[in-house]
Structure formats: structure tokens, C-alpha cells
């Protein structure tokens, strides 16, 4: 591994405030030319903010930025690009109906006519040099997430970027694509490019980076040579204390079958098969975890179960009664509770905490009598839930949008679990939450299980799946490719299943 210590970018004393939040607090960050530098931290630690400042999307309230040794002011991404800084965002900024080549030159000044041949040559050259294979004539919507990411990288390179920022680049990728990306990044670094990648995955840091900077609550807590640290030490730095990798869990007391799914099929938004012939059961008092890389049909499966997506084939039984293609309203009435994957779906931001608590139960007594809502019953219910679930809110009248992410999730879980549901479906219940909130939510899910609720847990976080589930199914391309007892679960085996590697005939 070569060691160059020319400074590619240096950020000194960067402070950035948002209303009510100190996103970056006197942050010092430096990346050397030709290195792969990991920026590690939990969600909300300020990683993306810091890089958005470097890319000119935000402006620091305080601090200085040096690019290749010279102090600069970066007013916009255009400035950043001129200085050789490129960024690949987590959500790709591509035009789906345009071709790869069109996206690559989009927004560039110059040619009146489309520089078709030049672009194609350039794209081919990058493909060869860095292993970024992609068809320049393909339309973006036809490409996989991994291919779209390659287009984003090519876009940055085409604009002359030699400092490349990647925001959580592997979050949308399959393990295979991740591997390809890693090799691409190594080749780029070997060519003298500087790569900064934002992540919260420890294994990625140790797998690829030369150095790592750890952010916690907007402050830098360490910058280290990756070789001189390990995952456990990094985890401690990242969360500020020893991480509990195992939750206390009582032995499972399995009751009767609550949910039985038989040969379920459903389509995705594009009308293509997304859930292909899935069957499983969940019993009262157990947590069934669904592991899988995002986009392998988990979302469609969950939506089909809660009535938000038509079931094209197959059957669903709840406590022995067929509920296939029932309306969401009927399913709620039958005791299916659902914590949606996107928090924004689960609450109405402008309505008060109290009003959000009755989102699922506003039709029933005591909250509704005839046509009229009963304010005092709603308020009493709100006070009870706020106290019981320790929701931090100034009052029950406070609009939910003013609460923190962790408290919003608490409120959603309070609402969904307080009715003692038969089946609780939780999709990515802790995504984006800090460690404290995560632990609380996980304990809540376990408590539900111990009370005899059947729980379906969907998560991309394998750690979470392993910590909570009693049984684990792995989904890949809309099918269940493995079912394992959590007690005998092997991380590596599940990882392989998630990547679509078939087991032997066992």
C-alpha cells in the first residue's frame, strides 16, 4: 500500500448549524491524495452534511476549506466540480428516461450538437481503466442500482473529478456489486484519485479504506490508519460506548399459528413480478425476520400483507380466516398493525401528537361517537401513551413534525402496539435512529413477542435480524431462498443467501 501525504482536501474548524441542530461542530478533516478515506459515523452524526459542504451544497457557518493546499470558497457544486471534486449521492441524480451518455453530459456547457462519439469513447475508456462497465446507449431506468452508480461515477470522472465523494455507496448494492465497486475504487486510488466514502458499516471500513475519520454527534472523535484499529474499537468510537451485540431474550413460547401465507405473488410499481410464490407462517409469540438486500421484494410483500398492494395469486390467512386482498381498513380491524418502512408514511406531520395516535383507531369508540370525535377520550389516550412509551414531546398538542426521528418512531410504535395486535409487521423499525432509540425500539418488539404477538420483522440490518428473530427467512429476487432457526443462524451463510448464492441440497 502506497503512502502519499499530499493533502487533497483539508477542512478546518467546520461548523454548520441548522435550525435546532448543530450538524458539524468545529470539524477537522483531511484526505490525502491517492488514499481511500472512510468517513464513519451513525446516522445523523453529520457525515453527509460535512461532505455536502465540501461539494458546495451547504455553506459552512465557520471554518476553512483547502483543496490541494489552497484555501478556497466553494459556493456551489459547480465550483466544487471546477476544483476537481465529484460526489455520488445516496439517491442518484439521474434522468431515468435519458440514456447513459445523455446523463453523463447533462448540464455541461459547450456543444450545441450532442457529442455522441466523444462521450462514448470517454465512457469506454473509463470502463476499461476502472472496470466501470456500462452501455452508454442504455436508458437509466433499464439499469440496476449498481449500474446507475457506475454512471454517477463516470459522470464525476467525465467532469474531471480527481477527488470523489461517495455517500453510503453500498446501501443499494448486492454483495457482488459491492465487491466490484470496491475493486473500482482501489483502481482509482492507485491512479492517484482520492476517494472519500461515507458509511456506517464497519466491515467496509476495514475492507477498503486506508484511513478512517469517525464522527459522532457532529464532532470528529478520531482519525486513524485503518490498519491500526479494528471493528470493535471503531464501533466504540462511533457510538461512544460498548455496543451490545446481543439483547437479552427469553426463550420463545410459541403459540398457535397467527399468519399463514401460501404461494403469495404480487407485482411491483412497474407491474413486474416482485413477490414470487412465497409461503411461510408466523406463530403467536415469535418473531420471524426477513433478511435481504433492499429491493428484493420485501416492500411489496409487506404492502401485500397489509392490503396496500393487490395480491395477484396465493392466499393469506390470519388466525385461520382468509384475508387475501382485504382492504387496509378491514385488516386493521382484524388486528394487523404495521410500522411502515418510511417514517413519513406513518405520521401526519402537521397534526398533533394526540391526533396522530388515533390514525388507525379514529373510527372506533371511544374516539368516535357517531360522526363526532371525542376530544377528551383522544386526549386521555394521548396522555396515557406519552407516559407509557416515554415519548418526548412538549405537549400532546405539539405537531408531530417537531419531534425527533426517534420520538416519532416511538410514537408510531406506541400507536401500533398499544392495541395488543394479533400481528405486528415492522419494516426497518430502527433505520436512521441513534443507538439509544434503537435499543428501546428493539426491546419494545421483544416485549410484544413475549406478550404473544406474532411479529414480522423486515430489516436490512442483519445484526438486528439476528438479535431479534426466532426464525429467519432470506429473500432474494422475490423468493425465499432460505429459512433458518435463529439459534443456528450463521452470519456468513445468510450473507451468501442474501447475495443469491444457492446452498447445496441440504
Amino acid at each position, binding site marked *: 500500500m502506497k503512502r502519499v501525504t499530499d493533502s487533497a482536501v483539508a477542512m478546518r474548524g467546520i461548523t454548520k448549524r441548522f*435550525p435546532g441542530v448543530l450538524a458539524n461542530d468545529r470539524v477537522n478533516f483531511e484526505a490525502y491524495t491517492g488514499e481511500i478515506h472512510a468517513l464513519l459515523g451513525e446516522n445523523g452524526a453529520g457525515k453527509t452534511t460535512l461532505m455536502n459542504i465540501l461539494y458546495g451544497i451547504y455553506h459552512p457557518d465557520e471554518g476553512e476549506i483547502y483543496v490541494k493546499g489552497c484555501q478556497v470558497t466553494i459556493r456551489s457544486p459547480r465550483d466544487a466540480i471546477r476544483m476537481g471534486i465529484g460526489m455520488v449521492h445516496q439517491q442518484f441524480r439521474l434522468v431515468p428516461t435519458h440514456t447513459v451518455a445523455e446523463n453523463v453530459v447533462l448540464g455541461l456547457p459547450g456543444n450545441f450538437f450532442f457529442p455522441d462519439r466523444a462521450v462514448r469513447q470517454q465512457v469506454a475508456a473509463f470502463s476499461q481503466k476502472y472496470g466501470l462497465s456500462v452501455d452508454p446507449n442504455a436508458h437509466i431506468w433499464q439499469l440496476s442500482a449498481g449500474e446507475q452508480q457506475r454512471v454517477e461515477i463516470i459522470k464525476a470522472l467525465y467532469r474531471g473529478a480527481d477527488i470523489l465523494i461517495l455517500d453510503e455507496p453500498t446501501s443499494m448494492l448486492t454483495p457482488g456489486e459491492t465487491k466490484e465497486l470496491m475493486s473500482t475504487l482501489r483502481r482509482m486510488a492507485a491512479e492517484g484519485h482520492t476517494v472519500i466514502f461515507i458509511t456506517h458499516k464497519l466491515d467496509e471500513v476495514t475492507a477498503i479504506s486506508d484511513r478512517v475519520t469517525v464522527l459522532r454527534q457532529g464532532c470528529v472523535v478520531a482519525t486513524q490508519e485503518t490498519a491500526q484499529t479494528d471493528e470493535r474499537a471503531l464501533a466504540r468510537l462511533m457510538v461512544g460506548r460498548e455496543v451490545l451485540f446481543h439483547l437479552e431474550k427469553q426463550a420463545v413460547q410459541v403459540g398457535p399459528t397467527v399468519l399463514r401465507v401460501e404461494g403469495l405473488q404480487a407485482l411491483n410499481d412497474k407491474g413486474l413480478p416482485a413477490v414470487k410464490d412465497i409461503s411461510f407462517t408466523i406463530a403467536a409469540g415469535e418473531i420471524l425476520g426477513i433478511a435481504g438486500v433492499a429491493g428484493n421484494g420485501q416492500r411489496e410483500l409487506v404492502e401485500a400483507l397489509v392490503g396496500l398492494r393487490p395480491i395477484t395469486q396465493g392466499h393469506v390467512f390470519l388466525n385461520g380466516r382468509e384475508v387475501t386482498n382485504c382492504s387496509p*381498513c378491514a385488516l386493521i380491524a382484524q388486528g394487523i398493525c404495521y410500522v411502515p418502512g418510511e417514517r*413519513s408514511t406513518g405520521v401526519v406531520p402537521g397534526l398533533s401528537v394526540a391526533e396522530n395516535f*388515533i390514525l*388507525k383507531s379514529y373510527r372506533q369508540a371511544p374516539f368516535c361517537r357517531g360522526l363526532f370525535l371525542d376530544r377528551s377520550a383522544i386526549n386521555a389516550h394521548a396522555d396515557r401513551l406519552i407516559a407509557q412509551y416515554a415519548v418526548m414531546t412538549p405537549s400532546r398538542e405539539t405537531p408531530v413534525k417537531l419531534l425527533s426521528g426517534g420520538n416519532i418512531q416511538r410514537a408510531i410504535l406506541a400507536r401500533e402496539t398499544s392495541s395488543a395486535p394479533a400481528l405486528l409487521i415492522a419494516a426497518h423499525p430502527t433505520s436512521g435512529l441513534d443507538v439509544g432509540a434503537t435499543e428501546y425500539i428493539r426491546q419494545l418488539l421483544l416485549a410484544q413477542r413475549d406478550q404473544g404477538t406474532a411479529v414480522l420483522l423486515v430489516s436490512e440490518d442483519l445484526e438486528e435480524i439476528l438479535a431479534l428473530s426466532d426464525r429467519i427467512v432470506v429473500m432474494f429476487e422475490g423468493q425465499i431462498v432460505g429459512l433458518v432457526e435463529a439459534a443456528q443462524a450463521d452470519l456468513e451463510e445468510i450473507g451468501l443467501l442474501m447475495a443469491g448464492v444457492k446452498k447445496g441440497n441440504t
Partner: protein
Amino acid sequence: MRLKVERRLTTPRWLELLAPAVALLLALLVVAFLFRAMGVDPLVAYGRILRGGFGSLYGLSETTTKAIPLMLCGVGLALAFRAGVYNIGAEGQLLIGAVCASGLALTFPDWPAWVLILAMFAAGFLGGALWALLPAWLKARFQVNEVITTLMMVYIASELVNHLVYGPWKAKEELGFPYSAKFSVAAQLPRLFLTRIHYPTLLLALLLAVLVYLLLTRTKWGYEIRVTGENPAAARYAGMDYLKIVLLVMVISGGLAGLAGVGEVAGIQHRLRYPQGISPGYGFTAIIVAWLARLNPLVAVVTSLLLGGLLVGGDAIQVAMRLPIATIYIFNGVILLFVLGGDLLTRYRIRLVK
């Protein structure tokens, strides 16, 4: 030095009240330049508008008269907008209400007054509601943009009225004017002494404003409307029936606009006339009424009086200062623009940073 726009975490109460007021003032300022350009002293013009609309008993009575259709339409629109359904076609729904009421009045002139009047209001509500129902169904079922469909339905309604008053309903005794025959006395609404205020419609409008307010804040339907308007995904997730909610708010807002149409023909015109003769764009001005009231049906009562006064004052400067009536429409447009802009300032703040 540069300007920085940031999201507000909370909106102070005073700001929510101040924003529309400041918007109104800024609109006055901008239109002042317009008056100047037309060679009129803006202060004199505003003075005339104020005195015209609010400065005399006659002015106030006319203001109230014009506020009646604005109130009915504005209250309905506030409800629809709260559900995130942008009904721009209250004008058309108003005209259909007028057509339905006129049809009854012309066909059954001999019915007892109270039966006929009640039937006319019922028919007007139904007509306006039905006129709004097609765009509502298209929106809920096929995601057709209701802004376009409701607006297009205005032109259809307008041409229908034209067809009727130039064709089948044209009265021989009107000497070629595009009017229907005059309604029988039974079909005419009583007016307040010496004014044109047809008070049954006014009372109906006030009652409906309260009812719609209660519907929105106290009932489960109102809850569904507010949830749907703010977060349709959450509404779906909670098992709310989107089609039902869209149809509900469109039936009510269309129906209320239809009632406004009944009031105009039964209370003011006593006949069906060409579209501009019945309504000088009340259905469109009501959009401003609703937004200026921040989509609160009770506040819409106040803002309808304000806009009504502006219309009367506009007539006054048109006559006294020989300004085109378009001036007042420009004024209205500028107010709406600033109110919508001011709304943004309640959610974001602008800071000057070095």
C-alpha cells in the same frame, strides 16, 4: 453578505396572523405603482375603494350582497383545499346551480314560494355537486389533474348558460336581450329593506360556514380530510378511502358554489342571464377568499366581506375615476400572489448572513 432561507421549526402564532396582513399591504403597494402608471393618485384611488366598499350604508350593503356568493364558494373551497383537492371550478359550479334553480323557477312558477325556494336551493346544490363530481371521480380514480378538469368545466357551464339564454330559454318580451323570462314572485328571495341583501342566502351561508368548520375540526370525516390533505400516503396506510374523501369534499364545495348561483338568480337577477351577468367571477375570487382565510371556513366569512368590499370599491373607481374594471382583477391577483408568498414565510425564514 447573502440571503439564507431556512426552514422554521415552529411558526409563531403572531406570524400566522401577521403574514396575510403584510401580504395585503404589499399588494396595496404594488398596485399603487399600477395606479400611478395610469395617471391616478394611488392614495385617492384607495380612498375611493375604501369609501365605496365600506364608507357608507349603501356601500356596506352592497359589500354584504357581494360577500354572499364569495362566502358560499370560499367556505367550500377552503374545505376542498384542506383535503388537497384543488377545485378551481367554483365559477362553473355556481353557474350550474343558477341554471338548475332557473329551470325550476321557470317550469313551476305557481308553486308556493317556500316550496319553490327550497326546491331551487336543493336543485342548485345538487347541480353544483354533480358538476364537481366528474372531475372528482376522474381525479380519485385515474389521477387526472383536477385543476385542469374543474377549470375546463367552467367553460362548459358558461357555454351552457349562453346556449340557454340565447336559445331555448330566451324570453320574447326581453326584446332580443339574452335573458330568460322573469321569475314569478314565488321564486324571488326576500331582500333586506332598501338593499339588495337577499338575507335567506346570507343566513344559509353563515350557517354553512359554521357547519363546515365543525365538520372539519370535530368529525371523523374532517379528520380524514385533514390527514388526506397533509399526507395522502398516511391516509392510505390508515385505511382511509381516498375516493370517498375526494367525492365528499367536491360534493360539498361544488354544492355550496351551486347555492351561491341560486342566490344570484333568485335574490338579485330574478332571471337567468348571460354568464358574466350572473357572476363577475365570484367563483374565482373565492379562491382568494379561501387562501386569505388560511383555509379556515370561519375566517372565510371575514375575508369574503373584505373581498366583497374590494369588488364594490372597484366599481366605485371604475365609475368615478374612469379606470377599467380589470384594475380590480389585477389587484385581486396581486393579493393572491402575495398571500401565497407570505404563506411561505411562515414556514421558512430568511436571514441575512455575512
